[in-house]
């Protein structure tokens, strides 16, 4: 789930307003966008990208490793299932408010065809200095810079703030993995943590969590086995129970998904949990030690 420049990216819904805006941004940053999909405009070119009628046709003609969709909720399932059937390895689902039973069908199709879904309701993936897929401000130099710290975030806006804080402190990022704010995600915090643990370009990991669900607790289980330093911030300490905090997944019901439970699980696994976003850079620098700091800042 770390995107690379060589990965062939197909944009679903490329001709819409957002599809157009973000495809131009992705291409300008270095993303290898090889095709766009719109059944009504197959054969045309849009923002310099050839358009195909379906992901399967694009995969056959130019290849397709990654698909990213700018698709409204009612059509999101069909687009995702088609992409999985076309054999894309990684499917980035940006759409928020997809009917839950459609999300289940997307995950079932992905499991059947060996596709990894990131999202739904993710802001996407960034490999600073190389490429990005989704709707993150990879191209804003105050936010992202290449480096050796991996960042996992449920939220796009908060993930942006965290990367900004790191960059300000001179700490660059190896990868930003936006996993999404929905209750049923294709890629969990734990999955992303495992990928960053195995990534040779990553020396340390920042986990940006949220109240609700059990993903941070599950990630803590894996964190116990890791040697790389880890720092976490969990949003929602001040959130009242029983209210959905914007993200469908961010709700505390009973003791499930509470701030205290997540913090405790992560701390027990050796993860440093900070109280405010700007404390992350300091905590991370301390965790990396002198040599690691040197390495992180010198990139």
């Amino acid at each position: 789930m770390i995107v690379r420049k060589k990965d062939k990216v197909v944009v679903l819904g490329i001709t819409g307003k957002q599809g157009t805006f973000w495809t131009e941004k992705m291409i300008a940053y270095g993303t290898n966008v090889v095709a766009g999909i719109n059944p009504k405009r197959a054969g045309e070119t849009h923002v310099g990208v050839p358009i195909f009628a379906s992901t399967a046709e694009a995969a056959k003609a130019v290849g397709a490793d990654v698909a990213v969709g700018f698709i409204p909720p009612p059509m999101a399932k069909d687009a995702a299932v088609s992409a999985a059937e076309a054999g894309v390895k990684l499917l980035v689902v940006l759409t928020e408010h997809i009917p839950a039973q459609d999300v289940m069908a997307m995950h079932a199709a992905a499991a059947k065809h060996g596709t990894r879904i990131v999202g739904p309701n993710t802001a996407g993936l960034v490999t600073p200095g190389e490429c990005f897929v989704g709707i993150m401000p990879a191209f804003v130099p105050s936010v992202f810079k290449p480096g050796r710290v991996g960042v996992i975030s449920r939220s796009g806006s908060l993930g942006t703030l965290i990367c900004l804080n790191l960059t300000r402190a001179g700490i660059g990022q190896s990868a930003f993995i936006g996993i999404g704010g929905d209750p049923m995600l294709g890629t969990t915090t734990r999955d992303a943590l495992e990928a960053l643990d195995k990534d040779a370009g990553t020396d340390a990991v920042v986990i940006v969590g949220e109240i609700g669900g059990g993903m941070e607790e599950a990630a803590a289980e894996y964190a116990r086995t890791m040697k790389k330093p880890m720092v976490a911030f969990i949003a929602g300490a001040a959130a009242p129970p029983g209210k959905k905090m914007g993200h469908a997944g961010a709700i505390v019901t009973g003791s499930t998904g509470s701030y205290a439970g997540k913090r405790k699980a992560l701390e027990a696994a050796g993860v440093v949990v900070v109280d405010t976003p700007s404390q992350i850079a300091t905590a991370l620098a301390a965790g990396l030690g002198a040599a690691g700091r040197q390495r992180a800042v010198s990139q």
Partner: protein
Amino acid sequence: MNFEEHAAKSLILAPAGIPVPRGMLVASAAEAAKAAKEIGPCVVKAQVPTGKRGKAGGIKLAGTPAEAEQVAGKILGMTIGDYTVERLLIEEQAKIVREFYLAVLHDTGAKKPLILFSTEGGMDIEEVAAEKPDAIRRLLVDIDNVPRGRDIAALLKGLDLGAAEQQIAQIVDNLYRAFRTRDAELLEINPLALLGDGRVVALDCKFVLDDASTFRQPDLAPAGSPPAMTDLERRGAEAGLKLIQLDGNVGVLANGAGLTMTTMDVIRHFGGKPANFLEIGGEAYTKSEIALDLVLSNPGVKSLVINFCGAFARTDVMADGVVKAWHKLKPKVPVFFSIHGTGEVEAVKLVKEQLGIEPYDFMEDAVQAAVKAAQ
């Protein structure tokens, strides 16, 4: 979205072929008496979209129309949870032999529909799960299929259901189909009762519609019960914005759920209390103009933090909306900005030039200043 019992029964269960008791919906004690006259000995049930109605005194038996009228008079106007009782379901009494629990819901971990069945019906299922976890049977269903007959048989096997087993198996199948076609998040029958005459009937029903599916269930949405809201929250909902009014005095306007929650957390961290949750993330980032109006309309607000961190949401567009609203509203409380991410150069320039305010470099500093100003 939650639904009251009568709506769940008439819109979901009955059309799915699941037996429900004969009942009538009424809104006054006089109507209750009239309904009881037609139905006979009855149960008078408060209609509110929340649990624990029985414990709150919202469900009573009545043997005669006079009794129904008296009981109805007591229950109408009662407060249960966040709701005032305005309607009653008058239902025929049932002679219960056994009570079961049956539900279909989302298993978010497995990412599949999950059917739950228990012979410990009538109780709060959380209590059953805590005290007798083995008493709850589970069946995960492949979303592209319906449950197979043999899986339903296995779900019910060895529970000594006798002649009722066939009926229950059919109800499980029908309930699952209704769950799928009606985009339920939860469809629960508790209790599902075996009656003295051998019939199996759904005595209560809880239906929660997946909020993301209302666009394709146009007949259901108007029959649902929106959550209890303050006037301000309702104004937010009408503008398509998620607003939660809180009891603090530092107003929050931020984009994205994660950043908004974080802004609230940092307010708390510095000893302040947030006055609201309001996010204008995703497609809603163009609504900052109405959003500023909403947060400033909260009478408790003594200061305001505007915290934008643009990814998809462009900070220049959001700042432009704030500036427009600002000129109309002329805020009387101090406002503190922090702006970063997509469009930040234009956004910061706009706020500086149009409002004469210098945004803070760190959101923590903006929040700290706002907390201090509110004290």
